[in-house]
């Protein structure tokens, strides 16, 4: 085998790294718009799923424009924050802030039958990684109309079951307030929800930690919306 001098090795490495760097940056820059579009479409599909509308990658854009009529951002005192686009709020960043600094996006939807639904985003920690989703309410601001959850790294067959339709269906018609109007969120109950309870759903057997994470996420994210929900309820009376 030929003997290479140190200077040659050094030159070789520098040239190699330079070529690789140019190649990778070019690819990253050229493909970025397409990748961002994919993330955006997924978000729209997810929002639609929370009002029980199935969409595909192709029609998500159209359906989203059809059903989502209005968006706004509120704070945890129930005031509307102006000048922020709800869709571009990154929940991963928001949940790291203290409650009183968060931007809380709200989506308004009108279904085909004229019913109005209010959609809010959720994000929290599962067992292995982030869990996130959207939950929609009837316009009484307390009854859940639909929910959708996603996960990146939960165990398939166990924690990842939160992403199945059958688990998410349990949330329909539940309410986040008790009889006296106190906010209690939704309890994800190990061993099964009390039959007939309006505030409980079944946890996933074998997915205890993910279930706990889900409950904490609901509590954490929804509590911020409560003052704004109460304001809306008052206005309706």
């Amino acid at each position, binding site marked *: *085998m*030929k003997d*290479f001098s140190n200077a*040659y*090795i050094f030159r*070789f*490495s520098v040239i*190699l*790294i330079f070529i*690789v760097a140019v*190649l*990778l940056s070019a*690819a*990253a820059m050229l*493909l970025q718009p*397409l*990748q961002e579009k*994919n*993330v955006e*479409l*997924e978000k729209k599909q997810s929002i639609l799923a929370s009002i029980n509308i199935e969409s595909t*990658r192709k029609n998500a854009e159209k359906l989203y424009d059809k059903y989502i009529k209005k968006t706004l951002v509120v704070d945890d005192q129930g005031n509307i924050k102006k000048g922020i686009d709800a869709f571009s709020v990154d929940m991963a960043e928001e949940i790291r802030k203290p409650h009183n600094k968060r931007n809380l996006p709200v989506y308004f939807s009108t279904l085909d039958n004229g019913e109005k639904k209010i959609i809010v985003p959720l994000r929290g920690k599962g067992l292995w990684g982030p869990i996130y989703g959207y939950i929609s309410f009837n316009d009484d601001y307390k009854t859940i109309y639909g929910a959708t959850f996603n996960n*990146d*790294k939960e165990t*398939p*067959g166990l924690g990842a079951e939160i992403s199945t339709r059958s688990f998410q269906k349990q949330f329909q018609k539940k309410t986040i307030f008790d009889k006296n109007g106190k906010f209690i969120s939704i309890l994800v109950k190990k061993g099964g929800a009390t039959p007939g309870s309006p505030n409980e759903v079944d946890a996933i057997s074998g997915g205890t930690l993910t279930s706990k994470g889900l409950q904490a996420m609901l509590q954490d994210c929804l509590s911020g919306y409560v003052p704004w929900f109460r304001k809306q309820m008052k206005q309706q009376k």
Partner: protein
Amino acid sequence: MDSEREPLFSSKNLKLLTDPLSDNNPITVQVLGICSALAITVKLKPAIVMALSVMAVLAVSNVVISALRKSIPPRIRIIVQLVVIATMVILVDQFLKAFAYDISKQLSVFVGLIITNCILMGRLEAFAMANKPWPSFLDGIGNASGYGLILIIVAFFRELLGSGTLMGFPVLEKTGLYHMGYENNGLMILPPMALITIGIIIWIQRSKNRSLIEE
């Protein structure tokens, strides 16, 4: 340098392509690349995309390393091989994110982990460093096909028996088996069953080809 030119698909070159499919299969005979074979074979579609990704990475890396083989300083050859593989893997990952987003989500970290797939380093070090680009290219395609073949066989059975679908199409529902009391086997979805499926494939292969059995 050879003075006489070999035909592109001489029997020696063809062997590079076909050998890894059976007698020298990277998974069942050399038992390399097992970890990804366990993780992404729950469904057929990600398995096929994974197989194609590995093929792209391995074929191109093999050609690049083989073309550079005389100018790569031996002292840093492993690092150079890694840089080439890593570059290809990042490119494939970026392309999947742009053009096959759903599948790239299902494959998640495993595209990135192609870098650590032993088949790649093994082929670069053992073959591409000592052979010309064209045979290296065939060797890359051949080994990736051998890897992909096993991946697809395993994924076929896991998806069929575990979820009752193929490529997401509910084949078992159409046959009416569920009405007769058949249920999907949830165990097939979990990683241990991939190991057992590969074990069965190895068993069948060795009982057919006795020369593979070690003393």
